[in-house]
Every structure is written in C-alpha cells, then in structure tokens.
C-alpha cells in the first residue's frame, strides 16, 4: 500500500467514524399495533382530548379518542401525564445535503450553473447524517430538504433555479424509505439587487452603483422569464402527439412547473422582491410559495389576494431594516395570519432545526394565537406543501408521525419521550446525547 492509499484510507476511516456516531437509527420493527393511552391528545383537528388513546395500525393512525378500544395484542404505551401532538414539520432545511457547513466535501446543496430544475434533493440525501437523529430529538418527524437554500455555499455561483426540494420522514435506512414526496417544490432563488459585496483580498466591502446592480437584477429576471417561456414551449411540444423534438432533461423537469402542478418555492425577503416575484408568478401562471418573507408584512394584502403562502424565516433573526421595530419578525406572523395569509415557520438551516418550536413560541408571545403557533410547525407546512392529507394532525387515516412529550412542544424545556415515524417507535438517541453520556462518565481528573 503506498502512502497515498494510506492517507486515503485514513480519510475514509475518519469519515466513517464521523458518520457512525450519528447513525443511531433505531426504529423498532412494527410487530404489532401500538396504542398510546391516557394521554392528553392535541389532535390539531378539534379540541384536545383528555385521557385519550391513539391506536396505530400499519403505520397509520387507526383510531383517536377518549373511548377507543385497544386492539388485542397491541403494544401499549401508558402516556399518563404526557401529551400527544403531531410530529413537527420543518419546511426549510438542508437535511442530508449538508453535514458540516464549512466543509465543501460534505455539502451538496448548491450546484454550479443558473438553471438546474432537474436536480432533486432526494438524490443526495444521506440517511445516516448526524443531523437527522439530532433533529428528531427535538420532536421534528419530517422536513423538506431544500437545495440551494442557505449556508455559505455560494462559492459555486448563484443559482436561480436550484433544483427540486424533497419532503422526507426523518427515519429510514435509505433515502427511498424516507421519502414522503420526492418532487415537492421547485426552488427559485429570486435575484436580488446587490450593491455591496465582500472582497476577501482587501477584506473590505465593495460598492456597486445601484443602476448597475439593477441592470443585473433585470437581466436575471429576464433570464428566468425566458427560461419559463422556453419550458412552456417545450411542454407544448411534448404534449403534441407525434411531435419530433430533441429531449432536454432540464426543460422536461419544468413541465409540471409551467402546468402549475409543481409549486415554485421562491426565496425572497425584501418587499420589492416579493412583490416582483408574486407578479411574475401570476403572469407566468406559476403556483408560488414564498420562503423567507422578511418583509412579507409590507405586502400582506397582495399575498392574501394572490393566495401565496409564506414559510417564514426565523422569528429570532434581526429585522431587515435598521428602522424596523425591534420585534418586527416576531409580530409579523400574527399580522400575516390576521390578514388571511397562510404561514409556516422554518428553521432555514438544519443546524438550527431544533429551534423550530422556539421560533413559533416567540411569535406566540408577540400576538400569534397558541393554536396557530402549534399549527404553523405541523399542519400549516403540510398544507402549504399539499401534504395535509397525510400529515399535520392526529386524525384517523393519516400517517402516524407523532410525538409524546412532557409538555408544550414549543417550550424550551420540554422533552420528547416517544417519537413515532410512519407508526414506528423511533429512537431519539443521537450524536449529541451519545457524546453527553460519554463525557458525563469521564473519570475525574486527579488534581
């Protein structure tokens, strides 16, 4: 074995070790039905049920209620003093696509090139990512894995169409097993008017005249419009019987978009950009979901009238403008909902996914009804992504993604006692807990 090989092996070994720590997957085989009994059940489809039972059969919720009979042979979990909720849903993450932000080798969120509609997140999701069990321990049972959606991975250039986001369960031995919906949304990074950039060579900010930045912006939007037009023509040709044409995998991926079947998940924060994006989508007849929405409150009426839902950036971020009220991002969820805009909260960063409940709680303390706060991390993201038939509430027939907690899942100190994904009791052990236990037991160092 030559030296190079040795180094290589060492790296592989290291990588193996890094990953192995996070592989505590631990779903137990669903031998029988499961019944969670004596719990307070927050179904989010009506009033909470005191001393209720949830029966899980074949991965689904078979029965919910106060007077539900427990099937013979069912595994019974006595949840007296505990509470049942639908598992939380984080609609903006890079789950499985980004392991360590600064290490490009572990980052698969952002491809080169401007238009990559045929790329699909599910293709590159690492099921043994340490992020998955860590996130699960916070009560999150499903997420949207979103390409081109955050982090410092801009080195490869700016995407406009970054690829397709995939909705996944946070459990499964393979990405295929984890899938909820492979093609859940087309990710569009709305171009921004950027007059400033950071120059590492001089370690200073560089300025660009507004007119130049605006020109670049207009050009990028034109490019996108042309791309949509091209896609529409391609779709028309593809639908025409007997038409002879050169196949184009990228444009083919755009067909459900231009047909309005696959929503576009557009990242934009400034009111001006949101307005432009909404108008663009209306003109192009695209089904839009807004992600970010830092200034969504400024265009709430437009969003309502065009029926555009918003996945909101973390409420704990600073507001966009210096003269915004200090609590602007915490008050806007209530304001948007009151205006009739559908909202959900997203972590926007899988390293922070476990803050999802906290994000919602900080909106609840600033005017959002508690019920809406809960729904904005469960039912509402499911509705926005068209997955509410399967997920988001504790109702008969739905996929049994449930959490059993010792309290309010939005509160900082609440623990998840049991977690079910697709009806299977799933471990909440994770890399962080493992390290905690390891070093908790480090023998004291002699002084």
């Amino acid at each position, binding site marked *: 074995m030559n030296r190079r090989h040795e180094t290589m092996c060492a790296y592989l070994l290291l990588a193996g070790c890094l990953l192995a720590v996070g592989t505590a997957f631990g779903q137990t085989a669903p031998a029988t039905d499961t019944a969670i009994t004596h719990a307070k059940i927050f179904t989010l489809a009506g009033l909470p049920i005191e001393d209720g039972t949830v029966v899980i059969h074949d991965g689904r919720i078979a029965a919910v209620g106060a007077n539900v009979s427990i099937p013979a042979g069912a595994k019974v979990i006595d949840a007296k003093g505990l509470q049942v909720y639908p598992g939380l849903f984080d609609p903006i993450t890079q789950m499985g696509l980004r392991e360590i932000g600064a290490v490009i080798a572990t980052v698969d969120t952002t491809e080169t090139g401007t238009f990559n509609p045929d790329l699909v997140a599910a293709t590159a999701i690492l099921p043994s990512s340490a992020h998955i069990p860590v996130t699960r321990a916070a009560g999150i049972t499903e997420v949207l894995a979103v390409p081109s959606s955050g982090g410092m991975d801009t080195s490869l250039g700016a995407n406009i169409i970054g690829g397709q986001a995939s909705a996944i369960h946070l459990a499964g031995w393979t990405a295929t097993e984890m899938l909820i919906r492979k093609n859940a949304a087309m990710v569009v990074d709305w171009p921004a008017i950027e007059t400033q950039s950071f120059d590492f060579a001089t370690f200073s900010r560089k300025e660009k005249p507004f007119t130049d930045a605006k020109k670049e912006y207009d050009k990028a939007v034109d490019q996108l419009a042309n791309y949509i037009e091209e896609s529409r023509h391609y779709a028309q040709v593809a639908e025409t019987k007997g038409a002879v044409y050169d196949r184009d995998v990228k444009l083919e991926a755009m067909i459900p978009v231009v047909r309005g079947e696959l929503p576009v998940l557009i990242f934009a924060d400034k009111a001006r950009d949101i307005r432009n994006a909404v108008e663009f989508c209306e003109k192009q007849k695209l089904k839009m979901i807004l992600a970010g929405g830092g200034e969504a409150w400024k265009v709430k009426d437009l969003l309502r009238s065009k029926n555009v839902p918003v996945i909101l950036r973390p409420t704990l971020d600073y507001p966009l403008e210096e003269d915004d009220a200090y609590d602007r991002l915490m008050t806007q969820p209530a304001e948007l909902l009151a205006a009739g805009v559908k909202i959900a909260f997203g972590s926007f960063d899988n390293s922070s996914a476990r803050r999802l409940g906290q994000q919602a709680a900080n909106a609840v303390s600033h005017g959002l009804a508690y019920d809406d706060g809960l729904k904005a991390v469960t039912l509402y993201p499911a509705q926005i992504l068209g997955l509410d038939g399967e997920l988001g509430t504790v109702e008969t027939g739905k996929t049994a993604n449930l959490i059993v907690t010792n309290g309010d899942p939005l509160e900082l100190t609440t623990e998840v006692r049991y977690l079910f994904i697709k009806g299977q009791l799933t471990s909440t052990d994770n890399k962080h807990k493992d390290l905690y236990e390891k070093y908790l037991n480090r023998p004291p*160092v002699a002084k």
Partner: protein
Amino acid sequence: MNRRRMMVSITAVALLFSMIVLAGMAREKEAKPNAAPVEPSALLIRNATILTVTHGTLERGDILIKDGKIAAVGSALKAPADVQVVDASGQFVMPGIIDCHSHIAIDGDVNEGSVAVSSMVNIADVLNPDDPAIYRDLAGGVTAANVLHGSANPIGGQTIVIKLRWGQPASKLPFEGALPGIKFALGENPKHSNFRGLGLPERYPATRMGVEETIRGAFTEARDYKKNWDDYNKRLAAGEKNLIPPRRDLKLDPLVEVLEGKRYVHAHCYREDEILMLLRVAKEFGFRVQTLQHVLEGYKVADEIAAAGTGASTFSDWWAYKVEAYDAIPYNAALMTRRGVVVSVNSDDAAEATHLNQEAAKSMRYGGLTHDEALKMVTINPAIQLGIEKRVGSIEVGKDADLVIYNHDPMSAYAVVQKTLIDGRVYFDREKDLAGRAALEQERKDLLEKAKKNAEKKAEEKKAEEKKSGEKKPEEKKPEEKAKPPQGQVVLGGAR
C-alpha cells in the same frame, strides 16, 4: 450566519434612495440625539417575582433603587417621598443580562486581520453609540456586553466591557472599572482554514502548531520587553541619571499587562486539544486565561478548565457549521458546570443576544441544570468572568440597579421583556416603544418625502442648468455615500 442573511444585510442598504434617507436620518440624529433617560432620584419596583440569582426567589417582592444602586430588596418596602413607582404585579425581575461575547457598538469591521498578532489595536477606540443593536439587545434584556475584537488572529485586538446606555455618547458606554481584555483565537479562524481560495492573502499561521508558536513567540518577546522596562524603572528609582528608556512597543504593552494580571485574556477556541494547549502556554508564562470563548469541546476537558480557574463562555446549541463545531453539543454548558467550571452562555451575534435568557434555559433540558443554575449563566457567571461581579449580576443591596422586567418567567420562550434598567434608569420600556411607533413611522414618511422632493428639485435644477449652458455636460459622478456596515456580522466578523 447563513448566506441569505448575509446577502440580506448587504442589500439592506442597497437602494441609493434609501441611502439618501439614511444619510438624512444620520444628520437628523446629530441635531436631535436619542435622549438618554434621566436618572430618577428613587425608583420602587413593586410586587414582582424577584429572581435575585444569589439569594433565591422572592415572591411579591419590592426593589428600591436610589442613585442608580439597589438600596433595598424585600416585601412591602416603605416608599420614600417623591419615589417613582413601577407596578410589576405578576411580572418577573432578574438582573440585567450580561453578554460575555458581543460585537455590537463597533464602528466598522471587528477584525484587524492583516497580522497574526494585532494586540496594538483596541476596540475601545471605535465604539459606536449609534449602533441600533444596542437598543435591540437592550430590548432583549442585555445591560452589559463584553465587546470583542474578531477571531482572525491568534492574538487579536484589545477589548472592552460596556453598559448598553443607549442614547449616551461613546464615552459613557464603558463599564467603569471593568478590567480591559484582549482577544485570542485558536483553531480554524486564525489559521484561515475556511477562507482559503477566497482571495485572502496567505498569512502565517496556517496550522494549530503555528497558532501555538505565534502566541508563545509573542509572549517570549513580551517577557523580554517587560524585563527591559523593569530594569529601567529599577535603575531610575535607584536614582541613576541619563538613562535611555526602552523603545515603546504598542504591540507588546497589552501583553505585558496580561503578564501583570491587568488585562484579561478572552480566548476563542473550539477543540479540546487547543484548549489544553492554551492552558499550558498560559501556565508557562504565568498568566491565567480569564475566559475560553465558544469552547464547544470544553465538556471533553472540563476538569482541566476548572483546575486552571478559567471560565467558559459558550453557545447554547449551535453546531456543525464547521469541523471544529461538529462535536458541539447542547449539553456543553451543563457538563462543564457539573465539573465546577464557571459557565456563561453568550451570543457572538447581535440578534442572538436578544434572547440569551432562552438560550440559557436550554441547559435545563440538555443536561438537567436547575432553573437557578441556568439563570446564572447569563447573569452572575458572566459577571464573574468579566470581574464585575461586585457591581452586577445579581439583585443585592449595593449593586448597580441593572435589571430586566419580564412578563413571564425568563426561563420560558414566552417571556417578553417589559423594561430594562441600567443604573436605575429605564433605558428600554416596551410600552413606550409601542406608543412611539406611529410617530416614528410618520417621521420616516416625512423624511422619505423630503428626500424625494430634494431629488426632484436637484434634477430640475440640473435640467435648467443644462438648458442654460446649452450643451450637455458629461454626466457628473455622484459622490459615493459611505455605506453603513451591514448589520450583524458580515463575514469572519466575530465569526463563530
């Protein structure tokens, strides 16, 4: 900090139009500075749940404040004449939050990254009292902050502890009597691991070995330099004449202060090995590392940290943004606490600072700290770490009246700050903030209108002039507005 946020903050000042507005507002500010609150002669907070931190919790308690200090704590205190009363029934009072790692109130960049040892520069020289982050962090209950240089160098710039006295000039920000500090940094940032290929010029060190050598080298120099001065002073004191003093070295002066225990070392670090490395070097040169900052693997070597008498100031739950943060765990603060380390939870980020109470509370879930232990991590513990525990960090008679009033238990995600006091003055008042918003909005509209009119007027004048001169002049270059630094860290910044 994610890319989007970075871009957002960069584009925040994008519109030329809004730049004009900002400039206009800056001028307005000069004419009408943010009025700092006046100090009431006496103030009485009534009927609150008082979290004293050092003496348990007092239900339905009162706090009397006189001349900016806590004069009495108890039940049904007698109200002196002319006292201003704050009814805090159903509310919680705790000591003001102390953020042991902040980069707010700094004018411009936080890194002098061109050299490996930048001890000659001082954050105290560039304090910016107009940074809106001061107000926003006040609204999150922060009353004092350890304002640090960035982490670009093994030995970075000098640092300063401030009180968040919003509305006061820069000269009133420093925490009187607090020992100054100096920033050290170990690991990926000073060795530029994550910034290569981005056009950053090559600079020594590029390894953790080089980081150690840089620190060792600088202190070796500092030790000699100190000896030269000591010798000189001794001979001078002995009455020797015609002595030539050693040449002054602004880089080494602060390091001598470290050796003399007159300046605290706040060291950014992540990995267990580099933590032990620094503790060894410090021991060798006879100084103490006051705090380890971030110290995300501190839980692995907690006994060693405790034995060195070094404090640890960490994040609640950030992880995996780089390799040295891949073993970061939310149990870190609790594990170190259990091993006897004085632990604080810090922000390193202006927005994160607005909810440090919540971040501290997470250690109740991760590692089972008690309510009071968690509370200490943003009050008395950072005070101890900054050597200001005799002044702040708990609610005790004689201490500065730096207090926060919440509507709920501050260890809950639902608690909202109602008032923040520094030296007995109400620097943040949620009611007043809410009441003042309409007026601010109007002022903003008026300024926009004014700017628009001015722009139109200028355009007309220009047209008229062009007509007059009869020929079209080449377009004049607009004087470039000096851009305000984007809020929060940009890149590197305080880079975690």
